[in-house]
């Protein structure tokens, strides 16, 4: 039998390493033990798949104890434990409802074995390109497919390739942007950790199309496992002759290098990424000239995101038409989302464009945790916006999402329930962008800081009536005045929350009240004397000694000392702590 342990970063974080070690120890040697990358069901990690001929047993939430039981079951070929530890039918739908192209190998192959990749038509697409097609023909297929940049902007990929193709230069560069920085987004990491050869092959095709001899992957240094697997994959591909000189015996040569980013969010912006590649401080350049004319080392360069490249080999193998058959009028193919937040089933979701947000959040994601109400979903991370409940039937399509004020973005989908304060949410993302501003533009550097200060005072009950109009003025000024995408999109979380949840802002400002009870300075706790049993638990946990009372007598909260942290409420077993 073949036993496969999901070992993406997420699986390892959940304890997959331990499960693997136990299986390695306990399994009889006649069984094959291997690993794969991210299977995509974060909420069920660690996951162990057992292939018994054609039969798949998928064990979830595999603790050390369960790992031992799995080893026993495999060794004895007795799967009576299945009912208890295998994935529930309901959860199987998480994967079966998806259409996986970019993630087509994720969770299925061993990312560190090129053979696994080759076994599924691997490197056939690049072979087809270099031996049977002109670069123009390659670009034409990509054009037919309608593939657009998956990093967020959604710019047609063929157009960028074509522009770089048409720029005359001996040296050109093909660059992969793997500087995935949005909080809550992990699609690119999953692809690299689970299927690095898909990326390499997509990049090779891109390099062939634009005429580049060098390809560079700019990847976050915070993704050590991705970097490790990518290095290994490059080595394997080079040894196999897919990378290097005269690939498939043709004139096409292309080599790869990896550049680890130093953690600046703005380096996900393509011109800042180029500056960083050149060894300079990551600060965006003015456009034009666009990288297709003057990019890395002032040479024509093309930059695409990981997920974009992950689709390319599939498109070449299956034809542009097949890709374009999926999706909507304006958005073709599939899109990967990192579904997180207050949703029941979080993980990686790849679906065809044109599905609705409801399909993803309530269908695949299984709705909201703990029976709470859905409030909004933040799309596109700090550059995106929130979409409220009444727009849940919005279709996933670049145009339709933009119309709501949010964006497709790179695929971060953070679900929020009634306990999330929308002012606080906007503040969270603005805090992120304000800190990550490179400092170049006045509007972004100081403007986001001022917006953050205003949001902070609103959440602390110090908001002024004119703050909303001041925020709006700053939002539009920053959008107009900032040089790069970071600054131009930074106001989006504020603008969309102002659009859909304006009442929450005025409630904070006028009534010093936070509906979600999340803004600690606005929450006033009290103890219901009838419900209090005088157990002293809350008093013991209170970090500021604000709670007093004798044993077995009702306790009291001292308002002056209380900082509104909510620890008492979480501690009380009798529901005696209430919010006023």
């Amino acid at each position: 039998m073949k036993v496969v342990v999901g070992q993406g970063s997420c699986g390892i974080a959940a304890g997959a390493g331990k499960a693997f070690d136990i299986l390695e120890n306990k399994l009889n040697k006649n069984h094959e033990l291997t690993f794969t990358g991210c299977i995509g069901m974060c909420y069920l990690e660690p996951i162990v798949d057992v292939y018994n001929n054609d039969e798949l047993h998928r064990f979830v939430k595999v603790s050390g104890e369960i790992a031992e039981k799995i080893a026993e079951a495999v060794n004895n070929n007795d799967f009576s434990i299945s009912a208890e530890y295998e994935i529930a039918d309901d959860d199987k739908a998480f994967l079966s409802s998806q259409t996986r192209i970019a993630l087509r190998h994720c969770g299925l192959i061993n990312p560190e074995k090129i053979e696994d990749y080759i076994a599924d038509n691997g490197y056939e697409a690049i072979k087809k390109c270099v031996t049977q097609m002109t670069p123009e023909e390659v670009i034409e297929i990509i054009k037919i497919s309608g593939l657009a940049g998956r990093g967020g902007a959604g710019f047609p990929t063929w157009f960028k390739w074509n522009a770089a193709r048409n720029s005359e230069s001996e040296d050109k560069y093909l660059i992969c942007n793997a500087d995935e920085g949005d909080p809550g987004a992990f699609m690119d990491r999953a692809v690299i950790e689970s299927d690095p050869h898909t990326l390499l092959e997509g990049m090779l095709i891109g390099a062939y199309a634009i005429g580049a001899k060098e390809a560079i992957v700019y990847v976050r240094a915070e993704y050590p496992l991705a970097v490790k697997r990518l290095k290994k994959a490059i080595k394997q591909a080079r040894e196999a002759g897919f990378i290097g000189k005269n690939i498939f015996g043709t004139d096409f040569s292309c080599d790869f290098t990896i550049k680890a980013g130093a953690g600046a969010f703005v380096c996900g912006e393509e011109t800042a990424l180029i500056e960083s590649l050149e060894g300079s401080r990551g600060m965006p350049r003015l456009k034009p000239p666009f990288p297709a004319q003057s990019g890395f080392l002032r040479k024509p360069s093309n930059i695409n995101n990981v997920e974009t490249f992950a689709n390319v080999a599939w498109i070449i193998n299956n034809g542009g038409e097949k890709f374009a058959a999926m999706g909507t009028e304006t958005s073709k193919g599939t899109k990967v989302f990192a579904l997180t937040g207050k949703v029941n089933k979080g993980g990686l979701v790849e679906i065809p464009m044109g599905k609705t947000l409801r399909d993803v959040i309530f269908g695949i994601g299984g709705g909201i945790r703990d029976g709470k109400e859905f409030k909004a979903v933040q799309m596109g991370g700090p550059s995106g916006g929130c979409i409220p409940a009444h727009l849940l039937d919005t279709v996933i399509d670049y145009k339709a999402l933009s119309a709501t004020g949010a964006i497709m973005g790179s695929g971060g989908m953070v679900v929020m329930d009634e306990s999330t304060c929308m002012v606080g949410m906007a503040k969270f993302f603005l805090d992120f962008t304000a800190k990550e501003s490179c400092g170049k533009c006045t509007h972004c550097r100081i403007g986001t800081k001022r917006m953050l200060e205003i949001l902070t005072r609103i959440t602390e009950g110090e908001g002024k009536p004119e703050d909303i109009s001041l925020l709006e003025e700053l939002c539009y000024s920053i959008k107009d005045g900032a040089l790069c995408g970071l600054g131009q999109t930074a106001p989006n979380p504020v603008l969309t929350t102002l659009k859909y949840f304006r009442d929450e802002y005025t409630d904070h400002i006028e009534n010093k009240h936070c509906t979600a009870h999340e803004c600690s300075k606005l929450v006033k706790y009290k103890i219901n004397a009838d419900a209090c049993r005088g157990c002293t638990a809350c008093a013991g946990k209170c970090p500021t000694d604000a709670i007093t009372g004798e044993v077995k007598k009702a306790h009291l909260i001292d308002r002056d000392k209380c900082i509104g942290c909510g620890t008492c409420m979480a501690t009380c077993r009798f529901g005696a702590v209430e919010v006023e």
Partner: protein
Amino acid sequence: MQVKIIIDGKEILADSSSSILEIAAENGINIPNMCHDPLVEAYGGCGLCTVEAEGVPKLLRACATKPSDGMVIHTDSDRVKQSRKVALELLLTDHTGDCKAPCTKACPAGTDCQGYVGLIANGEYEEAVKLIREKVPLPSSIGRVCPHPCEKACRRQYVDSSISIAFLKSFAADKFIDDTSLLPNKADLTGKKVAVIGGGPAGLTVSYFLSLKGHSVTIFDQMPKMGGMLRYGIPEYRLPKAVLDKEISLIEKTGVELKNNVKIGKDLQFDSIRADYDAVIVAAGAWKSSKMKVNGEWLPGIYGGIDFLREVSLGNKPEIGKNVAVCGGGNTAMDACRTAVRLGAENVYVIYRRTKDEMPADPQEILESEEEGVIYKYLTNPIEFTETDGHVSGVVLQKMKLGEPDSSGRRRPEPIDGETEKIALDSVIMAIGQVPELSGLEELEQTRKGTVAASESDFLTSAEGVFAIGDVSNKGADIAIAAIGEAQKCSIIVDGYLKGEKLCYKKPFVVERDDSEIDYSNFIKQPRAVMPQLSPSERKTSFAEVNKGFTDEMAKAEASRCLECGCHDYYECKLVKYADENDVSYKRLSGEKHSRNTEDRSELISRNEDKCVLCGLCVRVCDKVIGKSALGFVDRGFGTVVLPEFGKKLADTDCTMCGMCVDKCPTGALREKQNIKKSLVVKENSKITVCELCEKRCPIDVRYVGNTIIRIKPYGKDTVLCKKGKFDLIEDKTLLQK
């Protein structure tokens, strides 16, 4: 390639390789920018050069946009202006410093105190006087009599004591009091006639400036000589009339016609002046003593303060006897009591209802009067003047105590029931204020205070073409320098009026710090110069000037104490220029402000991070032009800062001290050390020449004032100087002669 574009409605044939910013500049349209310089690539950071192109949804950065045929650009649309304004406002919310020094801002006439004090410290007396005369045409007189709000604002007081700014002014001005060569060139005659009613400080000042602008000015004054209150209200021992005469004579030499002994309404009708002149400025002053509403106030032997001083100035000797009381606590009261001493009174009392701490008079004046034997009756208030043989013979004083503070913040005096005191007197001088006397000017709308109502922004009265300034208008009597300040501003507005332009006075924009934000601990204490004076005994019997004046050494040493509060880059700073032009109101956006207080002074270059706007020109010029990396950006977001590499001091980096960073810095964040006794902030003269220290012969712009070279800047947009041209050359004192 040539393309046709339209910028602000102007059709332009432009080179397609130039930027919109450059094309606009070549065609006289200056688009604000702070981070652009032809020596380096476009950067696009400051966000000021945004323009709108028709058909393009986004705002474009003019520095980085190349023209395409048919492009229609707007550099001042509402959207552009709003974006630019917000960018400026945001920059200002994190720009820490003082554009102008507190002394200069405190002066009602806006006299550039820091400027002339610095010039005096460098021995540039003539330049100092020219600078003062830009605002005040009576500097010798004003330096002697001004209660100097400048000194009250001077930050040196937090180290030891204020700079003696006023006396430095009269010190310098006295040196050139007879020198007509200092008068600025007069503009060509305009043919316009201006009548000024009243020849006091306001009337003389407005006449001087309007005359220099080419208008024909005539002053009508009711008194025998010009000078107004300076002549008839200030005693000789403070302001010798010979000094005033000389200053008035200089004003007369600019072409102002002086007509004395003309009382409006009596000798000449206001209507006929209005008919005969293109503009009329009412500067008639406030000549009527205020009354106190006390029993017996009408008695013979009781004088109004201003009436008493006028009589003495006219050479008359009012009968005041041996025992004299002066009621009031202001500077007129001081002048009255000290004059009474000099007229031979034996007991001179000052009656004041509060205590010395609340007295509005200059403390120095109080001290000097005490030295001269004046007796102070604090916390007393006259309730009745007694009479003997139809003449005042004494006063009954109500004793007072201080209660709760009133609206002015001073503690309110309250009577103590039943406690009174009687003093026998021969005469009383009521120095409790003065109001205008408006007979002959009845047609002008008045304020509730009985002054002429005039607009605060353009000095216009209710009558067309009639302006009012000084004590006669609005809030009434004030100090002379306030009247001079209004007069100088009014001259600009009247000049505009005569040319058919409608102007308004707008206070110049400044960034400022609170006095408490500054660390004074690093300044070395050095006491204020003591003005040499006649001894009290000499003073009591003579009207000779009390103050003997500073020597050159004393003046230079005193001027050198200046802390140089105002920014050294004021006249070069783009930020303050644009802020002033764009009507910014940045306070609404204010928040956390950097106050790093880490001034890095190398031998030749000083850095002040608190004034940096992150334009990056220093970093880029150093890197791309000089090929060094002495400066770089550190940190991200709001905390981004330009620092020398690896946290070193600038002098410890690979900096070559070429000073190009200083010359490219749009604000005062980087500045060169001035190789002179006291660093100057003045409008500099410019002399274009070449540096001859090597065969490259770089074109240079030598900035100087008088005989003092302040700095050398590269001349021309492509010039790159080295340390030799920037700094070493200054040592060559013959540079200016060349």
